[in-house]
């Protein structure tokens, strides 16, 4: 009897999954504790960056020269710096730059590298030859020297520094995109897209781009971490943010100058930077593992 009832129940027709492949990868990635922590940390950073002025205990630029190098206390959670400014507030203020700076430079790199890489990978020819040589040229320069040269033209300042870093990143991204596109362009579905009358631009964006999204995302997240470090380096040598604005790099520089008066002051910006870069890289690695890519180095 039981058997009969069970058989009588409607057979389950396996329906197509409702989630896109991208969403499935994302869900798989976030299930890992390390990745969830990294994502949570970045989220916290975003909240700090957006709502910083509301949260921070003091105005980050208000000086209190009578209270320089104050130690940790309830009024100044992370102490004060050489001008008596609240370090905790400055770390929070700098979170904004820590997020904006990589976004600008990776954005510039994507803006240059992605269209050129797609085009060169699909159509090859002159664009490929010229862009490839240019990429080789830029890659043959030490990154920092190249960035300094570009900065010398653009002039110092945070945005210029990040554009310079972006230009330095572009060839690497171009290479990754071009390589991935070359592989995807071999697939018949690219031909069949062309065969239904899809113009080149549409073929690139609609048919090829989603299929190279995995290596692109990996590269972009890892570049975010590198860009943050590059920004810190440029700010450390005074070519990035200009005072009084705070960046973790410029704070490190100040801490370095005053290391004998306030040895603790390297810790807040340093730890913030390490954790952020680590978060970017963890997420990049997780995406790479989730889509089954190996970083070929």
């Amino acid at each position, binding site marked *: 009897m039981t058997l009969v009832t069970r058989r009588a129940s409607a057979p389950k027709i396996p*329906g*197509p999954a409702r989630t896109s492949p991208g969403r499935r990868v994302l869900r798989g990635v976030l299930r890992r504790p390390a990745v969830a922590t990294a994502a949570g940390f970045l989220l916290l950073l975003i909240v700090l960056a957006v709502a910083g002025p509301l949260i921070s205990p003091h105005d980050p630029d208000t000086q209190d020269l009578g209270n320089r190098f104050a130690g940790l206390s309830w009024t100044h959670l992370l102490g004060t710096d050489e001008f008596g400014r609240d370090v905790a507030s400055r770390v929070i203020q700098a979170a904004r730059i820590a997020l904006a700076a990589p976004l600008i430079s990776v954005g510039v790199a994507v803006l240059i590298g992605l269209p050129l890489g797609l085009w060169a990978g699909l159509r090859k*020819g002159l664009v490929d030859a010229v862009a490839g040589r240019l990429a080789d040229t830029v890659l043959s320069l030490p990154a920092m020297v190249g960035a300094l040269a570009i900065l010398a033209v653009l002039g110092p300042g945070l945005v210029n520094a990040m554009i310079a870093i972006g230009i330095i990143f572009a060839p690497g991204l171009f290479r990754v995109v071009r390589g991935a596109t070359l592989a995807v362009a071999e697939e018949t579905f690219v031909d*069949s897209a*062309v065969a239904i009358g899809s113009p080149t631009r549409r073929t690139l964006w609609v048919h090829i781009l989603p*299929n190279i999204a995995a290596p692109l995302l990996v590269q972009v997240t890892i570049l975010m971490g590198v860009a943050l470090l590059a920004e810190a380096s440029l700010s450390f040598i005074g070519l990035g943010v200009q005072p009084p604005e705070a960046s973790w790099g410029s704070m490190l520089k100040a801490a370095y100058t005053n290391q004998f008066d306030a040895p603790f002051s390297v810790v807040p910006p340093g730890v913030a930077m390490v954790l952020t870069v680590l978060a970017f890289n963890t997420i990049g690695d997780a995406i790479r593992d989730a889509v089954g890519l190996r970083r070929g180095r």
Partner: protein
Amino acid sequence: MTLLSVEGLTIDLPGTQPGLVEDVTFEVNEGRCTALIGESGCGKSLTSLAVLGLLPPSVRVSAGAVVFDGVDLLTCSPRQLRKIRGGPVGMVFQEPMSSLNPSMTVGDQIAEARRLHLGEGRKVALARAKDLLDRVGIPNAARRLAAYPHEMSGGMQQRVMIAAAIACDPRLIIADEPTTALDVTIQAEILSLLRDLQRDLGLAVLLVTHDLGVVADFCDDVVVMYAGHIAERTGVDDLFYRPAHPYSAALLAAVPQAGQSRSRLTVIPGRVPTAGAFPPGCRFGPRCAHFTAPECARPQPHGRTRCGRVASGDLVLEGALHG
């Protein structure tokens, strides 16, 4: 009425190999099915790709014309060519698995042609895509619209490809070995689907294949290609009853016979010469059972057959069928 005519088509690999395809001329008539047959490496696929300008960038058409409905597709503007691709001419490729974009739902892929050519919005085009899925015999079409290609079997994927190819009511379908990658039972289903569509929609079909059974079943006219040349152009009955080129006859003889178990398979000795290493005179000469020294070493005639001996009545070939 002639819908597509290929005239003197010559395809080169610049620098190294001239004449991958040489002086190929044939026609596809409205509402009829023309088969393009031959061994692998004879230039069938290149010819079919050249029609829609889909050749890989390394090879080049160096001479000839491909006239579809009065327009030379080789010299028209890219814009005009795009209008014809997926509009009046649809294409179905060999491997359904790799011909569909893995990151796009099948509904969107079928709808794409209509959105591109007819300017339909996504909703309208998807509704039409559902009808098309119904038309090509995919059950549960409304649900299947949201499926990704990997969620379907090879036969279903090929049905989706066909649905996309007929999305804009084409007049000609170019099918490059549409059943080669499929199971035998599925092959039969796909072919009968193609036949139904051909009949119902009045489609002309250019079918690239090396399956003579498919040719016998499905086609009206046959173009036999060998080593970049056309060996013979003929009707399907003539091919099987009265082949006019030794190569056609050899292909027919190589078809295994049902009912004769444990008999040896007939083969054509040797292999297709690569471009650049073609023998002078008849290209099939070195493998031909009827090779005769002076005649076959000379350039062969153009026209219905490229065999001088058959053309002059010197050689009479035996067909696979008699009557």
